[in-house]
């Protein structure tokens, strides 16, 4: 029985229960994520992090949430009131919705019924997630536009351009997964990885592109241009306060968890155990798979924190250039290669032919990259045309022994 059929037998009350569970998991993991992020970042930065509220500061984010909710709610005079209020609701609702198709466990027993912890299994599940997250962008754009001030507007514009371009790269990186799994249903993709190898290994380039674009997609460091506090103060949420701000905050973290969950599902075998530890999947009546799933999600979340702790922010134009001129072309070429290999395999080509094709591709890629590298050197040496001589008197360099740290470039 496929997961879709299994879920199809769920009675209405069970679906409602699961919906509540998914919601609770999202909110709870946001609270935990904020705390974890602060503690881990603190460890990376010679600090302690929150350790006062509750054991080891665990309740810090809860108390912060309550504090945010009790704060005065301000709507700026210049704001478009209706849109201003709707924007955070759109952003938050869409994040939660994307969680509906994520398979979090294998077959388990829930209130006496055999089912899986997954709200529904659409045949186009992954496309559904992409669609829902791109609606979430409306929240950010509308928030920026409706605030009626400059910083949010710039932040909103940046964010929309950013998310749209990275959605393209993200979508393309997923195409290879679809080709390989032969399905767009999340449960089927998890199943296909269980039969073969994890997609992270087989489709390594797709995996790398997906991980990069998921950071871009969620507006997180080093791609947090939409809320670059050094430039745009708070970006699109500069004018937001109280619960509306809390909703954006929640949306950001649920979004991170959602893309991490999608990454685990599509590339790291979803709720399945690590290869060789398959016996653990039966523990706790199958519920142990939930732990495996969240271990993988946390692995990605840790990457998010690590990036934030160590990297400076990219500039807007550099970031867009990276998306359009590097990630998207590389994805397209990669899809071409994967598709060709797949067709060769299905047409029953001999193993030697497939290997020869792969070797040829590798050689071509290496040749191109070395050409690009050489071209780069040329451009660098032909840098900056000779400008006019300065018409302001420049002092002759005094006879002082000095060290040139830039290496006389």
């Amino acid at each position, binding site marked *: 029985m496929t997961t879709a059929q299994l879920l199809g037998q769920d009675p209405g009350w069970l679906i409602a229960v699961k919906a509540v569970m998914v919601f609770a998991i999202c909110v709870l993991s946001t609270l935990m994520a904020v705390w974890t992020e602060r503690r881990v*970042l603190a460890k*990376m*930065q*010679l*600090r302690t992090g929150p350790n006062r509220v509750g054991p080891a500061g665990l309740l810090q984010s809860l108390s912060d949430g309550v504090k945010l909710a009790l704060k005065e709610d301000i709507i700026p005079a210049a704001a478009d009131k209706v849109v201003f209020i709707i924007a955070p609701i759109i952003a938050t609702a869409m994040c939660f919705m994307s969680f509906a198709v994520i398979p979090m466990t294998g077959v388990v027993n829930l209130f006496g019924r055999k089912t899986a912890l997954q709200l529904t299994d659409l045949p186009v599940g992954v496309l559904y997630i992409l669609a829902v997250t791109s609606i979430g962008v409306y929240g950010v754009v509308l928030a920026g536009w409706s605030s009626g001030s*400059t*910083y949010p507007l*710039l932040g909103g514009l940046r964010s929309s351009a950013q998310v749209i371009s990275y959605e393209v790269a993200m979508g393309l990186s997923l195409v290879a997964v679809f080709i390989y799994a032969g399905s767009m249903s999340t449960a089927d993709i998890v199943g296909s990885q269980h039969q073969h190898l994890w997609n992270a290994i087989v489709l390594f380039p797709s995996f790398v592109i997906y991980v990069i674009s998921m950071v871009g997609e969620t507006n997180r*460091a*080093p791609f*947090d241009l939409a809320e*670059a*506090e*050094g*430039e745009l*103060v708070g970006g699109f949420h500069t004018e937001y306060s109280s619960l509306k701000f809390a909703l954006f905050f929640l949306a950001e973290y649920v979004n991170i968890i959602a893309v991490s969950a999608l990454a685990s599902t599509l590339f790291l075998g979803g709720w399945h155990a690590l290869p060789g530890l398959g016996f653990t999947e039966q523990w706790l009546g199958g519920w142990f798979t939930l732990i495996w799933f969240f271990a993988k999600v946390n692995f990605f979340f840790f990457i998010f924190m690590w990036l*934030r*702790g*160590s*990297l*400076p*922010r*990219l*500039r*807007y*134009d*550099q970031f867009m250039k990276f998306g359009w001129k590097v990630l998207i072309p590389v994805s397209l070429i990669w899809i071409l290669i994967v598709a060709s290999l797949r067709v060769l395999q299905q047409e029953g080509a001999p193993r030697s032919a497939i290997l020869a094709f792969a070797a040829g591709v590798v050689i071509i890629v290496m040749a191109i990259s070395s050409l690009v590298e050489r071209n780069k050197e040329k451009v660098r040496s032909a840098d900056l045309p000779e400008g006019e001589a*300065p*018409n*302001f*008197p*420049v*002092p002759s*360099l*005094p006879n*002082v*022994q*000095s*060290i*040139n*740290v*830039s290496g*006389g*470039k």
Partner: protein
Amino acid sequence: MTTHLDPYASSRETTEGTVFSVTGGDWDSLVSEIGESKEERIIVNMGPQHPSTHGVLRLVLELEGETVTEVRTGIGYLHTGIEKNIEFRNWTQAVTFATRMDYLSPIFNETAYCLAVEKLLGITNDIPERASVIRVMMMELNRISSHMVALGTGALELGAMGPMFFAFRDREIVLDTFEEITGLRMNMAYVRPGGVSQDLPAGMTTKIRDVVKSLRKNFEDNAKLLIGNTIWMKRTEGIGYLDLAGCTTLGITGPVLRSAGLPWDLRKMQPYCGYENYEFEVITADTADVYGRFLVRMAELEQSLRIIEQAADKLDKLEGQPVMVADKKIAWPAQLALGADGLGNSLDHIREIMGSSMESLIHHFKLVTEGFRVPAGQAYATVESPRGELAAHVVSDGGTRPYRVHFREPSFNNLQSTSAMSEGGMVADIIGAVASIDPVMGGVDR
């Protein structure tokens, strides 16, 4: 209207000439001015309350999309009237004010002022060597703490959170040393006309050597965080470009000037406090961009450590020598001493003025209440602060209080390069450019 309205200050004619009143509320006139042009531009008011405009700097930006077409800087939001206040205090008390101008480099402010006063008093050559060596050591320690803020906050403004904490760890080490020597972490009023306020605590040179050792180790870590980082290079290379001609036109000094290739360092060019007796190198770069300035500051840290080590060796040799000029008419009468109840007036001194010497008591009273007199005239003294040439122009009318003290603050002069550096670039590049100038608004506004 025929005359051009200054958007920042309305003016009216009086019998004494044009009087400008600088007020807020200039926003409407700016916006309407822009509104007349046909191009689509937006104006962004960055600051004075903005996360990365270094305190209360105000930048008024004209943007075309993300490209900056015009930058105007607005200053004066941290004006504290320090120069004016100094005119109402005696020559020694003025140090307490001067130290608060550029709050990241207090020792430099004090030293520049004291060197100028000493020049006026004609006692420049009578300053005890130990005092000069202590001044040099303190200045170099201060240069490290100041550069640590420049590098840390600079990185933070470009979005890198980590380096800030590592830089502040090292700054803390230096500030702790300051506290041990002077009793205060910042604004310590330690350098006084005639010398320094008190000698180093016992065993301080050993501690200083340990500090140098741990700082040197930490600097290696810090360098690893940023040097060679692809994103960091992309954000800094070729950004905030200002070549030598630009620097000299605008009167830029310090790391910004040295990043354009001119090895102009007053410690070498016009040595003061005995800098000619130390071995160190002037650091330059020729990229004239944010990255060059970053490298210059990083490399200057090591040179400062070298000077501190040499100073510590000299201090060991000069152990027990005075740290205040011998002339009792100028030297502050009492040295502080550590008693059972903490640091305070030396009991020996109190015993002397209260019990045995009437003349000492009179001296003490006159110096503390009224202060010493400085011959009429004016003097100008410069030091190389972490931000560039810091100079004090001191005018005396022969009284116990300065007639006028004016500071040439490097932050103020360097800040005018903001537009030259950032116009034509992206919004994000302004942040990098301003961070590389490293202006301290306390120093700009005084």
